[in-house]
C-alpha cells in the first residue's frame, strides 16, 4: 500500500512532464483488447457550393448524423461543408436538411458543429487538416488530433471526374495528391486504420492511387460511371440526396452502438439494382477480413472497458480554500456596479462637437 | 511665329475647348483608354485633397504621382480651380509649340549631318534624302500630328497628367535640339520620376550630346552620371518635401509591380489578372525587362548614328509595353514620326496599321461598354481588342525601324535595283 502511495505522489509530479512529451502510452491491457485501436475520428467533407448541390450537403450530414449517433463526439468529427443549406434563404424549412421527401430524418439536427464552412472548404485546408500541418493558432476543433491508435473515417462527396474531386467549382484535388496526403498521415502515425468513403461520379478513381497500408476504401461508382441522385423534393426543387449515401444511411440507421454488424455487411450496401452505379471496393491495402471487423470500429466509438472491483485509494492533495474575507463584495441577486464605485468611460466623443 | 502654326494652334485649341465644355468631357475623362491609375485627374484631386488635409497620400492606394506633381497640382487646384481645363489646353498647345521647335532643330541637324555625308550617297537617291524644305515642313507636320491627333485631344480633354508629361518630353526634345544639356537631363529626370520608364532615354541623349566631343565614351559616361545625380537629387528633394520615402514604393513600385489591374490599352492588366501566383514575379520582371533594357543595347548599336531616331523608337517601345499605357503617350510618340518623313517611302504596313488603329479605337470603347455596362460581353473581348491595338503599334514600330535600315541601305546602294531582287535580312 505504501509503495502505491509513493508512486502516486511521484506520478502527481511526473504527470505534467508526461503531458509535455507527445508519445501517449496506453495501458497494455487496454491496447491488447482493442488491437491497437483506441479512438475514432471522422473527417466528413462536402466540397460543393450552390443550392442545386443540396444533395451533397444532405449526404455528408447523413454520415455525420450516423457517426455522432454511434458515439463519436463532435470534438472528434471534422465536418467541412462548403455551403449553408439549412439556413439558405431558398430553404422553405429553415434549419433543417432532410434526407427524404417525406421528411423522415432531419440529418442536420439540433446539435451540429460545422468546423470548416463556406469559403474555408478548400483543398489547402483539407490537406493541411489530414496531414496535421495546420497554420499557427488554428483552433483545436479544426485540427485532426489523431494518434497511432486512431481509426479514421474519411467521407468525401461532391462533383468528381476521373482522378479528381472538385472543391467549390474553383479548384480540385487529384487522386495522387490525396494518396500522398494519406501516406503522410501514415508516416506521421496519424492513423491506425482508415476507412475511406467517397460518393461522387467516377468515385473509384479517387482511391486507385492509394499506397499506404491499413486502408479500406469504398466508392459509390467505378471509373467511367456516374453516381446518381436518389429523388427530388418538389418543395425544395432540387435532388435532395445521392443514391449511395441514401442507402448507406438506411443501413446505418439500423446499427446500434452495441450491434454486431460488420464492415463486410456495410460494403454490400447499395447493390447495382438500386444504386445504378457499381459500388467500388478496394481491400488490398486492408489486412483484415472486413467481415470480422465490427462496423463500430469506424462509425462508432466503442471502446474496451476494464472493470475493476478493487478499491483504489487516492489521497486528495490539499488546496487552500479561499476565505470569504478576501471577497470585496459578495455578488448576489440585485447588486449593481455603482455599489462598487466602478468608473466607466464616456461612450461618445462629445468633446469633438464643442 | 509661323502663321500656319498659329492658325492650327487656335483651331485645335478651339476644338479642345469646345469638347471640354461639352457634356462628353466627363465621360472622356472616365474612359480607361484615357485615364489610367497613374495619370487620372480624379486620383490627382484625391491626392491633393489628402495632402491638404494632412494625410500622406502615398500610404493609400489611390495616388501614384510624384511629389512635385502633387505640389504643383495642389497649387493649381487651390488657386485656379475654375480654370483647370483652360490650363490643360494651354499646356497642350505649348507642348505642340515645343514639338515644333524641337523637331525643327532636329531636322536642321539631320540636314547638316547629311550634307557632310552626301558625297558618299548613291545616285538617284534625292527622293529619300533630307531636303531643305523639310526644315520648315517637317516640324509643322509634327506639330499638326500632335495638335489634331484625336488621341492627344482626348488626352487633353480628359485632363490627365500625361498632358504634363508630354510638356516635359517636348521640352526635353527642344532642349536636346538646342543642346541644353543640363535642362534636358533635369527634364528627363522629372519625367522618369513620373513614369519611371523614360530613364532609358538617357542613352540616346548621351549619344546626342557626345556627337561633337572628342572623347565620346567619357562624355557619355559623364552624362549618365550627371543624370543619375540629378535624379537622385530630385528624389531627395521630394523626400524632404514629403519627409518620408513612402512615395518611392507608391510611384516606382506601383509601376514596376503593376499593382492595379484596372483594364487599360496595354498588355499587362489581363496578363497579370490571369497569371498563376507562383509565376507572377517571374513574368513581372521579364515584362519589365522587355520594356526597358532588353532592346536598349541592340537598338542603340544599330541606330547609334541617329540618336533622335533611337529616341523616337525607345519612346514608342516604352509606351507600348508600359504597365499603364494611355493614348496621351501614344499621341506624343506619334507626333515625332513625321520627323522621319524621308523614311516613310520604305514603310510597307501603313495601311494595315492605320486600319487596325482605326478599328480598335472604335471597337475598344464599344466592347468595354458592353462588358461593364451592358453585361453582354466579358473581359476577353476587351482584352482581344487591346491585343490587336498593341500589335498594330508594334507593327508600326518595327516597320519604321526596318524602313530606316532599308533607307540607309538604299542611300549607299541606290534605289533602283532589279525587280527580281529583294532586300532582306541575313
Amino acid at each position, binding site marked *: 500500500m505504501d509503495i502505491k502511495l509513493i508512486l502516486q505522489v511521484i*506520478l502527481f509530479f511526473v*504527470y505534467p512532464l508526461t503531458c509535455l512529451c507527445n508519445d501517449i*502510452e496506453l495501458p497494455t491491457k487496454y491496447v491488447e483488447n482493442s488491437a491497437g485501436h483506441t479512438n475514432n475520428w471522422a473527417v466528413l467533407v462536402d466540397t460543393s457550393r450552390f443550392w442545386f448541390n443540396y444533395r451533397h450537403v444532405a449526404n455528408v450530414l447523413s454520415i455525420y448524423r450516423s457517426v455522432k449517433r454511434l458515439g463519436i463526439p463532435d470534438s472528434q468529427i471534422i465536418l467541412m461543408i*462548403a455551403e449553408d443549406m439549412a*439556413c439558405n434563404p431558398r430553404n422553405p424549412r*429553415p*434549419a*433543417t436538411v432532410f434526407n427524404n421527401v417525406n421528411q423522415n430524418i432531419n440529418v442536420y439536427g439540433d*446539435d*451540429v458543429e*460545422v468546423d470548416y*464552412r463556406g*469559403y*474555408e472548404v478548400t483543398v489547402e485546408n483539407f490537406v493541411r487538416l489530414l496531414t496535421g500541418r495546420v497554420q499557427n*493558432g*488554428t*483552433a483545436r476543433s*479544426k485540427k485532426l488530433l489523431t494518434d497511432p491508435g486512431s481509426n479514421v473515417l474519411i467521407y468525401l462527396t461532391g462533383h468528381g471526374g476521373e482522378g479528381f474531386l472538385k472543391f467549390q467549382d*474553383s479548384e480540385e484535388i487529384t487522386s495522387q495528391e490525396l494518396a500522398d496526403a494519406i501516406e503522410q498521415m501514415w508516416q506521421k502515425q496519424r492513423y491506425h486504420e482508415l476507412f475511406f468513403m467517397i460518393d461522387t461520379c467516377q468515385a473509384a478513381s479517387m482511391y486507385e492511387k492509394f499506397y499506404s497500408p491499413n486502408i479500406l476504401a469504398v466508392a459509390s461508382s467505378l471509373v467511367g460511371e456516374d453516381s446518381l441522385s436518389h429523388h427530388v423534393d418538389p418543395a425544395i426543387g432540387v435532388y435532395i440526396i445521392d443514391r449511395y449515401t441514401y442507402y448507406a444511411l438506411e443501413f446505418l440507421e439500423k446499427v446500434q452502438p452495441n450491434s454486431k454488424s460488420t464492415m463486410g455487411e456495410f460494403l454490400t450496401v447499395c447493390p447495382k439494382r438500386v444504386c445504378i452505379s457499381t459500388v467500388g471496393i478496394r481491400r488490398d491495402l486492408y489486412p483484415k477480413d472486413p467481415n470480422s471487423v465490427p462496423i463500430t470500429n469506424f462509425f462508432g466509438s466503442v471502446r474496451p472497458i476494464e472493470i475493476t472491483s478493487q478499491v483504489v485509494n487516492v489521497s*486528495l492533495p490539499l488546496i487552500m480554500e479561499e476565505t470569504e474575507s478576501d*471577497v*470585496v*463584495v459578495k*455578488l448576489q*441577486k440585485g*447588486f449593481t*456596479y455603482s455599489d462598487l464605485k*466602478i468608473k*466607466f468611460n464616456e461612450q461618445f466623443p462629445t468633446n*469633438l*462637437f464643442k | 511665329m509661323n502663321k500656319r502654326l498659329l492658325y492650327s494652334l487656335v483651331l485645335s485649341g478651339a476644338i479642345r475647348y469646345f469638347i471640354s465644355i461639352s457634356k462628353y468631357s466627363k465621360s472622356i475623362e472616365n474612359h480607361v483608354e484615357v485615364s489610367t491609375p497613374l495619370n487620372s485627374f480624379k486620383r490627382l*484631386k484625391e491626392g491633393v485633397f489628402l495632402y491638404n*488635409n494632412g494625410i500622406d*497620400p502615398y500610404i*493609400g*492606394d489611390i495616388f501614384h504621382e510624384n511629389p512635385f506633381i502633387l505640389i504643383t497640382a495642389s497649387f493649381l487646384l487651390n488657386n485656379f480651380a475654375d480654370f483647370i481645363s483652360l490650363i490643360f489646353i494651354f499646356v497642350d498647345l505649348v507642348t505642340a509649340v515645343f514639338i515644333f521647335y524641337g523637331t525643327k532643330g532636329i531636322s536642321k541637324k539631320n540636314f547638316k549631318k547629311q550634307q557632310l555625308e552626301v558625297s558618299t550617297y548613291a545616285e538617284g537617291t534625292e527622293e529619300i534624302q533630307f531636303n531643305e524644305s523639310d526644315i520648315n515642313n517637317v516640324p509643322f507636320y509634327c506639330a499638326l500630328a500632335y495638335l489634331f491627333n484625336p488621341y492627344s485631344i482626348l488626352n487633353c480633354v480628359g485632363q490627365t497628367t500625361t498632358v504634363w508629361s508630354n510638356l516635359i518630353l517636348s521640352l526635353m526634345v527642344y532642349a536636346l535640339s538646342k543642346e541644353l544639356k543640363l535642362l534636358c537631363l533635369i527634364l528627363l529626370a522629372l519625367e522618369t520620376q513620373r513614369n519611371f520608364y523614360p530613364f532609358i532615354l538617357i542613352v540616346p541623349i548621351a549619344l546626342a550630346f557626345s556627337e561633337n566631343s572628342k572623347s565620346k565614351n567619357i562624355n557619355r559616361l559623364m552624362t549618365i552620371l550627371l543624370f543619375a545625380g540629378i535624379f537622385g537629387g530630385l528624389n531627395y528633394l521630394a523626400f524632404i518635401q514629403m519627409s518620408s520615402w513612402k512615395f518611392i514604393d507608391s510611384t516606382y513600385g506601383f509601376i514596376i509591380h503593376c499593382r492595379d489591374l484596372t483594364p487599360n490599352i496595354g498588355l499587362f*492588366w489581363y496578363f497579370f*489578372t*490571369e*497569371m*498563376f501566383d507562383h509565376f507572377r514575379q517571374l513574368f513581372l520582371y521579364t515584362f519589365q525587362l522587355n520594356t526597358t533594357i*532588353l532592346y536598349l543595347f541592340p537598338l542603340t548599336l*544599330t541606330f547609334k548614328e541617329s540618336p533622335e531616331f533611337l529616341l523616337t523608337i525607345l519612346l514608342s517601345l516604352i509606351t507600348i*509595353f508600359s504597365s499603364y499605357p494611355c493614348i496621351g503617350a501614344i499621341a506624343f510618340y506619334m507626333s515625332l514620326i513625321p520627323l522621319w518623313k524621308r523614311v516613310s517611302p520604305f514603310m510597307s504596313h501603313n495601311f494595315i496599321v492605320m486600319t487596325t488603329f482605326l478599328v480598335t479605337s472604335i471597337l475598344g470603347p464599344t466592347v468595354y461598354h458592353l462588358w*461593364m*455596362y451592358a453585361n453582354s460581353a466579358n*473581359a*476577353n473581348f476587351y482584352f482581344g481588342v487591346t491585343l490587336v491595338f*498593341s500589335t498594330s503599334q508594334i507593327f508600326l*514600330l*518595327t516597320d519604321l*525601324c526596318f524602313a530606316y535600315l532599308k533607307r*540607309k*541601305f538604299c542611300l549607299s546602294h541606290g534605289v533602283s535595283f532589279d525587280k*527580281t*531582287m*529583294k*532586300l532582306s*535580312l*541575313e
Partner: protein
Amino acid sequence: MKKIEFLLIIVISLNLTNAKYHNNVFSEELVIKELNNNFVNTYFQFTTQWNFKTNENDLLHTDLLSRSISELFLHYDIIELHVTLSNGLWKHEFWGFPVDSSGSGAELYVWFKNHLSQEEIKRQWIELSEALSGLLCASFSFVEETNTISPHYSYRPTSSWNVPLNSSFIRYAALPREVVCTENLTPWKKLLPCDPQEGFMSLLNAQYIYSTNFHSLGIHVRQLCIDKTCSNAILESKQTVNLVHDLKLFGGSEWSIRKLFGQGLNGACSVSSSSKIYLDITDKDFEISPKPLNIITSKKGGSETTYGEYDVKKWTGTGINKMINIAIVNKKHKTIPITNPPPLFAKRFLQGTGKERGKIVNQITNSHWSNLNLVVMENFPWFVPIYLHTLKLRVGNKEIKATAIKYIPGEQRKRAYHLEVAFSIPAKTTVEMSIEFDYIFLRWQEYPPDANHGQYIPSSVISTMLPIALNYTSLPIEASLYVESFNATRSSYFLRIHTEALLINLPTPDFSMPYNVICLACTVVALAFGPLHNMTTKRLVLQKKEEAKKTFLGKLKDKLFKKKEKPE
C-alpha cells in the same frame, strides 16, 4: 500503473473545481415587445458575473462562467470582447432601436490590455479570431489584417481598466457574408451554465429561431476592475439572442410563447439567481393570459414604458399549467397605433450603373426637434477604393460640413479603408452622406468561388447621443441586467445602430482563360521581339526573290492562272 495516472487526472480536476469558493451569479431575462405591423421582438439575455482575482490561476477555474470564455481573457490579454452573428435587417424606422445593435453577418471587436505592443496585438488578434472560429463554428479565420480596423471615435471601452483611452488597443472586423445557423447556436448554447433543455434556453429551438425575420446571437464579455491595481475584478459575460418574429407566419396577430418557440417554458434554469420575463404592455389593446404578477412602469428620458413581469422562479403552476405559456388573446384592433419614427434612422444603398464607378450613400434621418451629433464609421474592404474628396454631406441641395474626419486610406491586399465622419445633423432633416468608389479588377485567384454572387461591404456604424429615450431600449453602460435599464434616466443616451451591408458586383475575368491569356500576351511580345532581334543582329542584303517565298495571294494567283492555262 498507467491506470492510476488517468485516475489522478480526474481527481485533480475535480478537486480544483470543488475546493474553490466561487463568487458568481447567473441571471436570465427575456424581454418581449410587440413591434408595428405584426412583428414581435424577443430579446434573451443570459448574464454571468464573476468576481475573480486577476492572477492566472483564477481565470482557469471557473464555475458558472464558461471556461472557454475565461481562457480567451487569459491567453489573449483582452479586457473586452464583443461577438455578434446576425442575419436579416433590423428596420429602425418601423421597429425602433434594438437593445443590442449588430451588423449584418459576423462582427467582432476586442479591447486589448494596454501593456501589449502593437506587434503583439496584431498576433493576438489573429489568434483570438482563430480561437473564436473554432469556438463558435463561424468563419472568423477570415479575420485578417486586411479587414481589421481600429475605430477612433465610434467605439469606447465599456470595461473599466483604469487606463487612459487609446484607440490603438481596439480591433474591429466585420464579415458581412457570414451566415448564421444551428451550427453557431449549438456551441453558443454550450457556453451557458444551464442545461439546453432547461430555463430560457429551452426556448431556443433552431427551427423557430431561423425562420424569424431577424436573428442575432451575441456574446459580450467585459472585465471590470474593482480596485485601483485591478487585482480584484468582475468578469461580466452577456449572451444575447435578439429575434424578430413575423406573426403572419403564425396566421394572425395573436401569439403565444408556444407559437413563437414551438414550446412553452418549463421553468427556470436551476443555477440562475433570477429568471424573469418582461412583457412590454405599454398602450396594450390585448389581454394576456396568464396575467403578469407584477406591473413595472419605467420612466426615462421623457418616455414611459409599462412592463408585465413574470418571475419564473416563483412560478407555481401544476399539471398542464406547469409549462409557462404567455399568450396574447383578444386583440381589439380598435386602435391603430400611430407610432412616431425613432429620433434617428438610416438607410444605405449603392448608386450608379455599370461595374466601373459607383457611389455609396447613407441616408440618415433626424426626426428629433434638435440637432444630433453623430459619428458614422465606414469600413470598406481593400477592393473598394474610395475617393475622400468626393465625400459629401448634403441636406437637400445644401452641403454641411463635417466636424471631424478620421481617414486611413486602404491599400490593396493589405489594409481596409477606415473612415469616420463626425458631424451634426440639423433637426428634422435627412442628411445624405455619399462617397464615390471604383470597382476594381482582382487577380483571378483572389475571387471567391462564387465570384458572380458579388462581394459584401460591411454595415456602417452610426453612434450618437440621444437627448431623449424615445424607442431607446439599450442598457446603460453601468448596467448589466435588463432590469437595471428601468427608470435609468440620464442626461443623454448613447446609441449605436448599424445600417445595411451592401453587395457589390466586381467585374470578373474569364476564369477559364489563364493559359490562353498567357500565350496570347506572350505572342504579342514575341511579335516585337522577333523583328527587332532580326534587325539588330542581321545585315541587310539584296537577294534574288525565291519562287517559293511568294505571298499567299501570289500563290493563289499563280494557281488560278495555271489552271486556266492547262486546258489550252
